[in-house]
């Protein structure tokens, strides 16, 4: 019995790896690896001061050390949790509002002015406001992430609804598909590709904003970790944190691309 469970886990893992390798073209890995090699060599040959640019091996060692103490996992967990909360709140608000705005020209007429005034405000400019209102704990970061993710997502949802071909709308009417059924069967699936584009853009923004917010005022999270490493002259950890952000962002985007492909594969 235990064997079979283990086999399943192994099978799952290899499926996951196979899936990842399908997403990544092997050729795309060559250049980053070569760059890491050149980087490592130049530091070891003394061409670069390790305080300004530590070797990749030093970065990974620094990450490994705080991984062993558990500090790394706490910081990753905190940042991801903030992103997850902010992102979910943004999606929960932006998708319904975007659908409603795309559907109703009247609603658009009333809200357009307000939305166009709010939209240009950079989320990072609101970090002080969120700290003033919500303190330096999770709530302020989550609010800023939600605000940042809200805009690209909502605008893409509106676009998705506006771009539904009039032909399909007319066809739906002649089949008696109206109201809630129209929403479920025509509007949402037709807008879905654009919704996913919005979700991908928002995910990237969430990463930017969580790090910025954690650098301004926080006592945990990857942004805090990077800034704290800089203040304490641990440049290995500082760069390690940055590389970690790149890897996490890459994995998140790959996952969303896979979801996107699965959903829009029939529409080519």
């Amino acid at each position, binding site marked *: 019995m235990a064997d079979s469970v283990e086999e399943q886990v192994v099978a799952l893992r290899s499926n996951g790896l196979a899936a990842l390798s399908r997403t990544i073209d092997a050729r795309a890995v060559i250049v980053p690896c070569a760059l890491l090699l050149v980087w490592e060599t130049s530091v070891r040959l003394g061409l670069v001061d390790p305080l300004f640019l530590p070797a990749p091996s030093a970065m990974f060692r620094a990450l490994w050390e705080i991984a062993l103490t558990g500090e790394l996992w706490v910081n990753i967990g905190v940042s991801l949790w903030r992103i997850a909360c902010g992102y979910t709140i943004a999606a929960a608000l932006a998708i319904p509002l975007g659908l409603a705005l795309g559907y109703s020209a009247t609603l658009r007429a009333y809200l357009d002015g307000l939305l166009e005034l709010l939209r240009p405000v950079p989320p990072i400019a609101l970090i002080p406001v969120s700290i003033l209102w919500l303190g330096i704990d999770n709530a302020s970061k989550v609010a800023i992430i939600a605000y940042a993710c809200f805009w690209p997502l909502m605008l893409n949802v509106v676009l998705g609804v506006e771009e539904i071909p009039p*032909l*399909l709308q*007319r*066809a739906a*009417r*002649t*089949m*008696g*598909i109206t109201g809630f*059924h129209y929403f479920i*069967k*025509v509007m949402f*699936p*037709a807008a*879905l590709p654009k919704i996913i584009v919005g979700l991908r853009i928002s995910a990237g923004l969430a990463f930017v904003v969580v790090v910025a917010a954690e650098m301004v005022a926080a006592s945990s999270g990857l942004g805090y970790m990077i800034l704290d490493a800089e203040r304490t002259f641990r440049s290995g950890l500082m760069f390690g944190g940055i590389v970690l952000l790149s890897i996490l962002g890459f994995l998140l985007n790959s996952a969303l691309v896979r979801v996107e492909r699965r959903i829009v594969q*029939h*529409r*080519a």
Partner: protein
Amino acid sequence: MNMEVAGRVTVHATRRVPVIELRDIAKIHHTPRQTIKAVNGANVRIEPGEFVALLGPSGCGKSTLLNLIAGLDQPSSGSVLFNGVPRNAPDRSVAVNFQEPALFPWRNIKRNVTIALENCGLSRDQVEAEAERAIEAVGLGQFHNVYPAHLSGGMKQRVMLARALAMNAPVMLMDEPFAALDAITREQMQDLVTQLYTARRFSIVFVTHSIEEALFTSQRVIVMCARPGRIVHEIRLDEGYPRTYEWRLSDRVAALRRELHQLMRDLDAGDRVTCEG
């Protein structure tokens, strides 16, 4: 509601009440710069089970008439009656096939047909069975799971026909459905439509700008001309169904084709005179 009316009326008064009646229809489009009379004074009666072709050049208002019958648009004056009852909005009693196939890209063929049957009181099994029957009837039995992106133009129009069949509406409107197809596929589709019509005998209003297509498929050709869109001529064809290849090549069709060609050339010339004048 309308379906019930259809049932009652067709039983008691098939000959007296047309399934579709257009009374003194005028449709005026207002643009910021000008007012365009798309249709003026159109009167049409379509009997239950009749196959009517609306023939005319681009801009003669035939698609406008079709949209009015479909309930997708409202006349500026006059009325559209379905089984004697005014018709103001689209409903399931009139199936519409547009020139561009209106297929939902995220649904495969079968689900593009079932969408017309969902939420109208049928069980899931019934919906599936109806859809399968309709897809079989248009010759796409092996393609249930294929998505629209992978279909040819002819196959897409077949799916549209299957959807209309599955709706089991007493009236089917077709707005130049085969205009974008190649000549051979077009002929095949014309044959398919007349076969389906032979079997089911619903009413069909078929908009086309092809004289041949109108003559091959319909029982009655209504000729329209432009500026303003109006009905100028009508031809009844006594040929029964199914239509054969011999009918396409017959002397009668050839003679009618010549007559209609001449008529449309004359109308076009007259049109130019009035425009220039």
